[in-house]
C-alpha cells in the first residue's frame, strides 16, 4: 500500500491553523497567577481539619501591644470592681459624633435611633428592649452600659467582636447624650440660642 504524502501546502495551512487555535485557546487559559497558592483573607485551607486558613488564637496568647491592663478602659470597671461612672478619657464633640455614627449602625436596628427600643428588628419579632429614657437606665453608671455592649445582657447579644473598645466608649457617650436630649427643657438651651429653636434647620 503506497504511503500517501501530505502536500507541503496542506501542512503549511494546517500549521497556521494550529497556531491560531493555540492563540485563541491561550486567551481563556487561567494560569496560577489568577489564583496563587497563598492565603488571602478567608481563603479555605486544605491543611487544617476545620478548613480555615485563619487560625484561632492559642488560649492565653497576648498580641503585641494588647496587654490590655488598663482595667477601667477595657472592662468599664473601677479598681473596686464596680462599674465606672466617669469616662476613661476626655469626651469631646468628636467622640460623641463618632458615637452617634456607630450607634446608628450597631444599636439602632433594635433600639431605634432615639433609643426608645422600637427598632426595625424588634418590629419583626425580636424581644423589645427597654427604652433608654426610663429612670433606671438614666441612673445606671457609664461602665454598666459599656459592660452591656461588651458582654451582652439577657436577650441582647454581645458586641465585643463587632465594636472596638474605643467605639464602645463613644457609643456610651452618645447614649448619655440621647438620654439628656429626651429629657431636656428649654432651660438647658443657652439663652442666646433659644431664638434659633423655632426656626428649624439651625445648626
Amino acid at each position, binding site marked *: 500500500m503506497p504511503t500517501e504524502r501530505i502536500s507541503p501546502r496542506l501542512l503549511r495551512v494546517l500549521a497556521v491553523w494550529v497556531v491560531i487555535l493555540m492563540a485563541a485557546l491561550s486567551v481563556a487559559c487561567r494560569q496560577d*497567577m*489568577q*489564583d*496563587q497558592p*497563598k492565603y*488571602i*483573607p*478567608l481563603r*479555605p485551607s486544605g491543611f487544617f481539619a*476545620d*478548613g*480555615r486558613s485563619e487560625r484561632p488564637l492559642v488560649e492565653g496568647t497576648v498580641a503585641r501591644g494588647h496587654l490590655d491592663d488598663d482595667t477601667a478602659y477595657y472592662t468599664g470597671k473601677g479598681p473596686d470592681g464596680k462599674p465606672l461612672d466617669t469616662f476613661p478619657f476626655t469626651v469631646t464633640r468628636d467622640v460623641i459624633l463618632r458615637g452617634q*455614627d456607630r450607634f*446608628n*449602625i*450597631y444599636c439602632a*436596628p433594635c433600639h431605634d435611633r432615639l433609643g426608645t427600643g422600637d427598632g*426595625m*428588628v424588634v418590629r*419583626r*419579632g*425580636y*424581644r423589645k428592649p427597654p427604652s433608654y429614657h426610663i429612670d433606671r437606665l438614666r441612673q445606671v453608671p457609664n461602665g454598666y452600659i459599656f459592660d452591656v455592649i461588651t458582654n451582652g445582657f439577657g*436577650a441582647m*447579644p454581645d458586641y465585643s*467582636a*463587632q465594636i472596638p473598645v474605643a467605639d464602645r466608649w463613644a457609643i456610651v457617650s452618645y447614649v448619655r447624650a440621647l438620654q439628656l436630649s429626651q429629657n431636656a427643657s428649654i432651660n438647658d438651651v443657652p439663652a442666646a440660642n433659644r431664638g434659633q429653636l423655632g426656626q428649624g434647620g439651625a445648626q
Partner: protein
Amino acid sequence: MAQIFHRSTNTFSRITIFGAVFILAFLTWVFAELDRSNYNTRATVPREQPVPFSHAHHVGGIGIDCRYCHTTVETSGFANIPPTKTCINCHSQIWATSPTLEPVRASFRTGQSIRWTRVNDLPDFVYFNHSIHINKGVGCESCHGRVDRMPLTWQENSLEMEWCLDCHRHPEKNLRPREFITTMGYQPAGDQETIGRRLMAENHVQDARVLTSCSTCHR
C-alpha cells in the same frame, strides 16, 4: 488555456483584500466586546449560596447598615464576611426555627464555617483595598451597585482593569461625602462635578497619574 476567472473578478479580489482589514477589525471588536461582556466577567449573575442570604431583606427591608456585618470595610483592605455569630445576634430569635436557616444554626452549634461562594473575585496579582476608597469618599454603591435590591448577591461591574482605570482617571464623578458612604440610591445635593471636585480637594485625592500607574494596583 482559457482564463478561469473573468477580468471583472480582479476588482472583486481587490475589494476582498481591502475588506479583510475591516473583517479583522470587526473580529477584534467582537473579541473585545465578548471579553468585557457580562457572560465573560460573570457580572450581574446571582450566585448560589449555602443559605439564601438576601441583602434585599436585610438592607432594603429592615435597613441594617453594611458595616453591621462588613465590619472592617473602613479600616482594612478586606471588607469581612460576617461570622455566624453575627447572624445569630438576630436569628436566635427571628426565624429561629426556619429550615432555611438550619445551616446557620448548625454552623453555630458545631463551630464549622459556612462556606459562602465568593462573588467579587479579583485575580491575585491585583492589589485592592477597601479602606482607601471608603475614606476618600467612594460609596459602596459606586462599585457594588444597588445591593439593597439583590435577593441573592451578584457582581455589579466587570471588575476589569478598564473599569478601575475609568474611575481612577475621573474620581470626581463618584465621590460623595463621608456620611453617605453606605447609602443606597444616593442623590448628590447639587452638581456632582462641583461636589466631586470639592471632595477631591478636601480628601487630598491623589493625582490621576499616580492612580493609573501600574504599581498602584500591581505591587
